[in-house]
Structure formats: structure tokens, C-alpha cells
């Protein structure tokens, strides 16, 4: 697990108030929303804000399907890396 993935997992746990959950309990490829971790669209909104704030990046409002990056921790980490590099 990369440091960035770990940081994102901890951000998810903190930002969404997931008690009794540790980073080890979230798989990098585990689906975050709907089934899987069972998060909803309000969590997605909260997480979007938290990610942008923590990493100082912006979710591109021009591009389509930006929320696909929120599918799981691995895709989020890739998204954050790409945005930070940009």
C-alpha cells in the first residue's frame, strides 16, 4: 500500500466518521460507494471537498465523469497524483 493510499484511507475514515474502521479494513480496490463500503452520495460530496482541501487540488468541472475517480482508493490515489503533478 502506498503512503498516498494510506493517507486517503485515513482521510476517508476521518472525514466520514467511520468508527471502528482502520485503514487495513479498506481495500485499495474496494468499491467505496453503494455496495462495498456502503457510502452514499453525501459521503461522495464530503469526500470530494475533503480531498480537494487536503491535497490542494481541484475536481475539474469541465471534464465528464470526474466522479469515476472516486470508485475506490486506488483510483483516487491515481487521480490525486495526476492532479498534483499537473
Amino acid at each position, binding site marked *: 500500500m502506498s503512503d498516498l493510499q494510506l493517507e486517503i484511507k485515513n482521510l476517508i475514515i476521518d472525514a466520514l*466518521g467511520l468508527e*471502528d474502521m482502520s485503514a487495513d479494513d479498506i481495500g485499495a480496490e474496494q468499491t467505496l460507494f453503494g455496495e462495498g463500503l456502503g457510502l452514499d*452520495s*453525501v*459521503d461522495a460530496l464530503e469526500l*470530494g*471537498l475533503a480531498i*480537494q482541501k487536503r491535497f490542494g487540488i481541484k475536481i475539474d*468541472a469541465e471534464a465528464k465523469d470526474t466522479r469515476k475517480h472516486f470508485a475506490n482508493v486506488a483510483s483516487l490515489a491515481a487521480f490525486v497524483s495526476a492532479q498534483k503533478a499537473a
Partner: protein
Amino acid sequence: MTWLPITDLLLKAQPERQVALEPVLHHPELRERALRLAAALQARGVQRVALYLEDAAELAIALLGAWRVGVQVLLPADAQTQTRQRLSAQIDLWLDDLSELDAEPLPGARLLPEHCRLTLCTSGSSGEPKLIDKSLAQLANEVEALERLWGQNLGQASILGSVACQHIYGLLFRLLWPLCAGRPLYRRAVPFPEDLQRISLDQGDFAWIASPALLKRMGDNLDWSALSRVKQVFSSGGALPGEAAESLHERLGQWPTEIYGSSETGGIGWRQGDTAWQPFPGVELSLDETGALRIASPYLPAGHIEQSADAAEIGTDGRFVLRGRLDRIVKLEEKRISLPMLEQALMSHDWVTDARLGVIQEGRAFLGAVLALSTNGVHVLRNQGRRSVTETLRRHLAEHCEAIALPRRWRLLLELPYSSQGKLAQSQIDALLAAPRPTRVEPFSREELDGEWLLQLQVPVDLAHFTGHFPQTPVLPGVVQVDWAQQLARQLIAHLPPRFAGMEVLKFQQLVRPGDTLQLSLRFDAERGKLYFAYRNGEAACSSGRILLEQAHG
């Protein structure tokens, strides 16, 4: 575009009338598909249908098709297994895809008002889901009033919504109103700000049917000057925080239009900015003896007065101010959640003897549960750990409610702290949920005999230390036992030297686990500066030792 009453939506094809966007749908196709569906429903002998369709245009087709042949429509709030089972006795068909129902179309016709029957499902305060019947007149009165208030301002704006049409707000604002007014509606709900921007800016004029869940999380990333073309921003489903309204006002140069209402009553009042609420035309308000709002309205059945559980004050000008909820229905991000229903569901589990829920507001709003565990529940906690208990109970609850209502925070007790009058205030539950899990213990009895104290205490089942020690087999750490002995001794024995100087003959003989009842003996030998402690669990010695205490150095 000319206004079409709901009853006339299937009467004549109107080729120039655009109904929906992405993909585009014009009125003749909407009408044709509704009339085909009507024929298919009739051929199948369907009398009552539940519709669960995320595409607003598909829902419109199904709704009008059903009404064309007098099929009663039920709109469930969710598609949970439990919901489907519960409703199964009341419907002939659950329809979440229209592709399978097709037949040669019936002729177009004016809808008969007595044919247009709609039932909404929502959470009732008793815990049972509540079914609310709507007549065509109620719905028609409301969309006509909306058009009179804001139709001119909206013009031909495309209508984009972040909310589902399964609920009264989305159904009226995102579906029926644009249908009648001839404004194109965007089919899918758009829950994310960046998508809302992208889709909006592709339109000519546009307006938003939004909710506080979205409007208070718009972020700092949008092109507000481009978005300020928005004709109007509606917000309903729950209270919009003042700062969110203020922020929209600053960024868009206009106040959002907040709608206050309920599934039962439809719209009650509206406001723009931090002012009192203006009742909709024809809505008559009064207060009962508890200060709760009573509503008579053209959007209610004739002569009916709806008793709400919303406390309010009515000004001399007829406008009103809301003062909070008087019952145990809460709103989590606009979802109406019945706490009694969830509590009953929790108590139906073998591990739980009592349950109370409260709302925690931290970034987002979520529920917390305070539980009294049964003997079996404690057994599982002791042998499999806390997470096993909470995860199992979450899964159990998931069969009864939407994911949003699943508690994210749990406080586990052996019994809930009822007063001697049998009362347990919500404020106490909220305080338990707000506080961190316990790290200390309160003895339930204490006595002194010849300088030796004997205390009885019960190890809290939810002690914070158990989480890491150990996740699957919670055991009271030795260091905590020593710490408790010293803390409790300081409460009971005067003039204990303040400084911890070490330990002697420390023995741990038996594990101490959640819920254990312990006897703790404490004796201070002042001459040697030694605090003797021993924990027993009935006959079994658990641990003992001496804590060396000394005076603080100069």
C-alpha cells in the same frame, strides 16, 4: 409554451413541445409511449403499480400511462428489499424498467381526475412507513400555484435537479411542473456540483431543483460567474443552513428559493434569504396548544387540516418562523428517518435489549446508536470484539432502512441510563454520543473497614481501551487496572502522596473482560508509602500489587 393541465398531457400530440433532455424527448413520443404502456397495463389487468424509475421522463411516461387507465400509482421512497416486501401486498406490479411492457397504444384522451390516484411512501412517526394519498386536484393546484409565482421568471429554462422524483418535492418541481409548463427536464438527477455546472452551461436558460445536501457542499471550484445565469435555485427537503444560502447569494447574485413543506402537505411556504416564511397562496396556518403548525391548504384533501410536528411562530403579517421538530422524526441530508422504527429494528435483534438513536452533526449528519446489550450480545462482544457486534447490527439494520440511516457511531452499555421516573431525555442520548467512549470506571458500591476500602465495579463494555487491546478479544490492560486503582484510591483516601514511584510484586492472574463485575480492595500503608490493591472476580483473583507513592520533590 402554453400551459397544459395534467389532465391534458395525453390529449393531443404537440410536436413542438420538448419534454426531456439527454436524450431529447418530445411530447408526441412521450404521449405515444404512455398510451402504449397504458394499453399494456390494462391488458395485464394491473390495478396498482409501484414505480421506481430514476429517469424523470420514464417516470412521467409511466405515471401518465397508469393514470390513463385508472391504475393506482405508488411511489416508494426506496427500492430496499424490505420496502418491496412490505408493499407487495398492496401492489400488483413493481415497475423499475418500462422496456418489457408494450402494446398497441390506446387513443389519446383527457385523464379523468378520479383515475389519477397517487400514493407516496414516507417515514411515519410511529415507525411504520406512512402511505400518503394524493388526488389529482391536490397536485394540479400546487403546480399551478408554482407557475403563477415563478413561471414568468423561469421562462423556457431547462430544469435540472439533484433530487429524486420519487418524493413529493422532486415529483412536483422536477417532473409535473415542467411537464405542464413545457419546460425541458433533464432526465437524471445530478447529485454532484461539477456535473451540475457542466450540464447547466450546455443549456440556454436553466434552473436548479436542488437540496441542502448539494447546496451546502458546492465547493470553491465552480465557475460562479458563468453559473449566475441560473434563472432560479430551489432548495427543499430539509433546512438550508443560513451560511449556505448566504454563500449562494454572494456567488450567484440571487437568493435560493427555499421551499418548506412535507409529503403530507406539499408546499407550505417559501422564502428567499433569511426572512420569515411566506405561506403559499391559499395555505391557512394556525398553531395547536403545543405550538405546532396546523395546515389547511388547497394541496391537501378538501376540508382536511394537517397537524404537523413542527413548532412555529406566526407573525401578524401571516408569515411564519420555524422552531424545530416536536417528535422523533429526523432529517438526515433531507431523508426523513423515523428513529422509533430503527430502534425497534435494533431491539428485534437478539443481542440488543434496548436502543436509542440520536443525530450527530460532524461535516455530514449521521446517526449514532446507544445500545443496551443482552447477555448474548455481551457474549459476542467478549469473544469476537466490538467490531463484530457493530458490523452485524449494521447489516441487520440494512435490511430495514437505507444506508444513510445506518448508525456510524455506537455506544454499548448494559442498560440505558433511565431516570427513576423511567425517563431518558434525547439530550442524554445526544450527550452520550457526543462524548468519547469511557476510559474510567465508577464503583457502584464502596465501604471501608479498618482502613481497607472495598469497591465493587463493573468494567464498562464499551471501554475505549478495548479497541486496540485486542480487536477480537477485548481484555482490560494491566496498566489500566493499575491506573484505576490509583485514581480510585485518590478519591477515597486523603493525603495520598502525589508522585508515582514504581510498582512491586505485580501479579496478573486472570483476564478481565468487558462487563465483568470486580471487587477492588485498596489499602494504603502510609509508613512505607505503599498502596496495596487487589482485583477479584468472585472467587478468582485477577490481579494485585503495590503502588509506591512518594511526596513530590522540593
